[in-house]
């Protein structure tokens, strides 16, 4: 069902949800937006062309959370987490897509991450399409789009004074009960906006044969070239909405086993106790990062593991640009016979 939401009533609507849900929405933090819980005085960051700086994966996989508690006599018990029913409002389609991609890793048959899946079940996601797509994003290039519905419960399209609300699930519909139904005309207007946003996005690089090229050139100088100015920090991976690696660490003083975000760009990520490191330098680590997104994800679930949000492009301290790296990868030699 499609509804019309007047922008000036948005605040009231958000506040009304607070009775039953914890509501998260992008709010201003310093000079960027960040998903924070709604309070009486919260304001939605409007007109920020950018995504939140920390991707919403953090709402489902917190940067630091306890997994296990140590009990007194050498025992272990599950760490308890109170997980409330939540509404995440204003999630961008690329991020929603990314969260859905991460489900394939965290929710596998008989191998389910309890915390992730509980958070996912208890969260209603309401998206906000990108009517003015950002400059660094390349969602259409990797097969997604600025108005992809992913598994959102509802999505908003900015029409100036109003939002068009498209609901895709019962839970989503439940959030917007009582709002006027959008007319066909308005819906078409929204579709036009969606289409034009989609068309505005340039093709950043060709994806044809990209997987094969990266695979076949596993031992190529290409990786030396693209990684030489890399600093080896974790910005690209920590801000990536589809990066999910984590580290499990014992915090002795808290008597907990916790998980922290980890990054394949760190030296200690794959360092073994013997001192051997399968990925000893930034060359191998960069290769792992790119290959994971553009090769391994495809092997595993047949989808590119990058939703083109553009965060890594924007915040890389040395201006390394994944779009340029992949354009360069397209110039690599490729033998079709191998691809079969």
């Amino acid at each position, binding site marked *: 069902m499609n509804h019309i939401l007047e922008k000036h009533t948005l605040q009231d609507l958000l506040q009304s949800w607070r009775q039953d849900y914890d509501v998260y929405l992008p709010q201003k933090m310093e000079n960027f937006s960040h998903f924070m819980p709604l309070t009486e005085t919260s304001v939605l960051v409007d007109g920020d062309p950018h995504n939140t700086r920390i991707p919403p994966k953090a709402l489902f996989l917190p940067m630091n959370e306890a997994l296990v508690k140590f*009990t*007194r006599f050498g025992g272990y018990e599950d760490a308890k987490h109170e997980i409330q029913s939540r509404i995440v409002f204003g999630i961008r389609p690329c991020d929603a897509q990314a969260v859905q991609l991460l489900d394939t890793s965290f929710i596998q048959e008989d191998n389910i991450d309890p915390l992730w899946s509980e958070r996912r079940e208890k969260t209603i996601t309401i998206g906000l399409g990108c009517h003015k797509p950002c400059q660094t994003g390349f969602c259409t290039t990797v097969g997604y789009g600025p108005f992809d519905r992913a598994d959102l419960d509802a999505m908003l399209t900015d029409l100036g004074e109003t939002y068009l609300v498209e609901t895709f699930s019962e839970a989503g519909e439940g959030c917007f009960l009582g709002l006027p139904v959008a007319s066909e005309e308005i819906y078409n207007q929204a579709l036009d906006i969606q289409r034009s946003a989609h068309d505005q996005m340039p093709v950043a690089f060709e994806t044809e044969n990209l997987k094969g090229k990266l695979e076949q050139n596993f031992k190529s100088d290409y990786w030396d070239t693209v990684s030489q100015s890399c600093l080896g920090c974790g910005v690209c991976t920590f801000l990536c909405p589809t990066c999910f690696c984590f580290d499990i660490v014992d915090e002795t*003083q*808290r*008597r907990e086993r916790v998980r922290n975000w980890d990054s394949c760009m760190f030296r200690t990520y794959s360092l073994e106790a013997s001192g051997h490191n399968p990925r000893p330098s930034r060359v191998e680590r960069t290769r792992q990062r790119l290959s994971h997104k553009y090769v391994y994800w495809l092997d595993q679930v047949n989808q590119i593991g990058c939703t083109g949000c553009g965060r890594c492009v924007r915040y890389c301290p040395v201006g390394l640009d994944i779009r340029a790296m992949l354009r360069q990868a397209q110039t690599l030699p490729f033998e079709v016979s191998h691809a079969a």
Partner: protein
Amino acid sequence: MPDKPKIALFQCRWCLYSPTDQEWVDTKLPENIHLTKTPCTGRINPLYMLNAVQGGADGVMISGCLPEQCHFKTGNMAARRQLDEFNDFLDYIGYDKQRVRFVWLDLQDRGIIQKQLAAFEQDLEGMGPASNLATRVKVAEGEQNA
């Protein structure tokens, strides 16, 4: 009765030679004082101090040998530079300078450490408990016993 201030005491073991002091330290140290004996004040990494502060110490006391009497020649001088600067730095971001005290002792100085600790404790009581930088999550007492 309010809790006594928690003091982290870092003590170079070379200047605790006086038997009475040693005995006092080993057997009669009050519960609110957490002693760490180090081989030299030079061994005190600023991170030890940070650990104490983050763990909720109301005061940190560092005691070492007199200048030119360091067992390792210059360990205490090196410590002086580092720890003094670290103290300034912690003060800059919110841990009061007065909560850290440095004392130099002689091998023959009997009882000084006790007197100093008592005086320091009194000063700390006047300042109240330290809350800044004490960020390390502590396991609640009840939980630990469960």
